[in-house]
């Protein structure tokens, strides 16, 4: 698969100026882990609410007015449209400000930006989702998208890990995927606590133990950079070709539309050419640039 094979994604509903955010209202706040929150939001403008479309894998630039903007993927599925979701780890200026917001607060949103997961390419294939920590957020959009069209896809494996049981995000989703008989779900933590009865071990190791066959399969990987770096070699050992490995990258971004410069991996801009890449695309640069 080449860059052009990865779908170009929906263009932002521009009103002439791509940098102008739309006003959106927070409808619900969910505490995922001590540092991570999910926000449900909707556009204030009813017309936009009706017309807005996006695809799994795309992201937006979220504003806290007076503080700044930061990019986050849309973590809800385009198949579930009554509101939009994004998940935020409290790590810096904008994310701290977001965490101070409650239901009813207004934020800015511009997007959707970037490409999306190649849905056509994934059809009729076995899908292996490999995620770590808050890296589940973009995959979650895709997982629900796939589950809502379950008959289009073959076997589904989800391998998800976090540092500790309390760092597992989207526990309500993990529960329902666990119950779903059409999904093979493995949850792991680096180190369990007294109450943890599940698996222990790093995601790449667990992936190696689960050893999903590479034939007619695509692995979709997202997590902290170190996890991504260690997962690709494992997939390689399992027989996956670089074209069968898909990831979505996170980098510092400002403009979201390939202009401000900082998010490049080699000549590719994560915001413009990604965030979804095949390993084949970024292999050359990833060892030293990500």
């Amino acid at each position: 698969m080449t860059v052009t094979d990865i779908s170009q994604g929906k263009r932002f509903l521009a009103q002439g100026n791509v940098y102008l955010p739309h006003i959106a209202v927070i409808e619900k706040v969910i505490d995922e882990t001590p540092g991570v929150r999910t926000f449900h939001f909707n556009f204030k403008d009813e017309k936009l609410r009706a017309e807005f479309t996006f695809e799994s894998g795309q992201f937006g630039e979220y504003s806290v007015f007076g503080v700044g903007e930061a990019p986050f993927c849309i973590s809800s599925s385009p198949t579930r449209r009554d509101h939009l979701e994004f998940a935020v780890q409290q790590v810096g200026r904008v994310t701290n400000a977001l965490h101070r917001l409650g239901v009813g607060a207004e934020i800015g949103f511009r997007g959707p930006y970037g490409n999306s997961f190649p849905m056509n390419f994934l059809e009729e294939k076995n899908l292996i989702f490999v995620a770590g920590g808050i890296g589940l957020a973009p995959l979650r959009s895709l997982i629900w998208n796939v589950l809502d069209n379950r008959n289009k896809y073959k076997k589904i494996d989800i391998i998800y890990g976090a540092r500790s049981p309390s760092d597992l995000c989207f526990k309500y989703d993990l529960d329902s995927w666990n119950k779903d008989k059409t999904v093979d779900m493995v949850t792991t933590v680096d180190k369990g606590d007294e109450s943890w009865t599940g698996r222990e071990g790093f995601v790449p190791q667990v992936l190696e133990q689960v050893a999903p066959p590479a034939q007619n399969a695509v692995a979709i990987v997202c997590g902290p950079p170190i996890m991504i770096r260690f997962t690709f070699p494992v997939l390689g050992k399992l027989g996956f070709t670089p074209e069968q490995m898909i990831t979505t990258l996170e980098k510092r971004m400002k403009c979201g539309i390939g202009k401000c410069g900082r998010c490049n991996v080699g000549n590719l801009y994560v915001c413009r050419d990604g965030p979804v890449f095949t390993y084949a695309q970024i292999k050359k640069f990833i060892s030293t640039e990500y």
Partner: protein
Amino acid sequence: MASSNKKINKKDIGKLLNEWSQEFTVFVPSRETGTATMAKWDGKDTSFLDWYRNTVVSPKANILPPMEEMFHFQKDKEGYHIELPPLDGHKQLIFGIRPCDANALAILDMTFNDSYEDPYYLSKRNNTILIGLGCTNPYDSCFCTSLGSSPTDATNVDLMLTDIGDEFLIEAITDKGKELMANISLAEEATEADEAKAKEAREAAYNKVTRQLDIKNIDEKLLASFDNQDYWEKIAAKCISCGICTLLCPTCYCFDINDELLKGQGARFRSLDSCSFPVYTKMPMENPRLEKWRRVRNKVCHKYEFYPMNFDVIACTGCGRCIRLCPVNWDITQTLDIVPAKA
């Protein structure tokens, strides 16, 4: 046979600028602010014709300013209201832009037109007339000829002026330029002798650019050396990671976006940024370009490898500012001279 070009006496440049001031905000090289920039024409001072070689701050600043307000916002009972400032699309004329800087704008156009149009940049760019002025005295840091250009290259200007002694030869390059030239009251038809003088001046200027850089296969060489940490560390050793080379580079466009809040009002600004700074790519948990050699590599490769990969053109016009203004004399041509060829 008379040429289609015109000429104007140097003494009349002031009058010409005043004519143009009727329609445009005219910018000319100036040292008034303490450093050489393109500044608003004050209606009289043409002394720049004597001292001007090139500005420190390139005319990029007239189109992609160091900072600009993107919009402002206010909050009331109903919530936030966003207001766009009037996009700064006043008609401006930049007099005396050097070919390297004009070519640089053509390179910037590619990024700001790519996939999403950038309204701030384009509103200014589309309302700007460029009056090129060929160099007669390039700096020892200039290397435009190595990049397929020349000190008198007229490719990316509307009107080109070439120094032919007491006069400037005027060539109209674009339609806008033709219209402009037709309306210059003080211009005369250029003669064949004038054309011959201009040709001579162009050749003389070309030969004055002595710094040479071999750009053959440079992008391939850089790609092959991308992981050559030893090379990059050596190249980066004396760099102090300041932003001079990037912020003053006519083809560097990276910017940052920030909000400001004062007295209940807020505004969003964008301002130039530099990949030389560690914070440029800093994320809360890690920084892919924390080490200096990675940042230097990105700067060099962006211009000579990534931009050619994306837009088929090297994002450097050989203006030499990065060499001339660098406080430690880090020299991009020396860097590129010793890129290891394919192993």
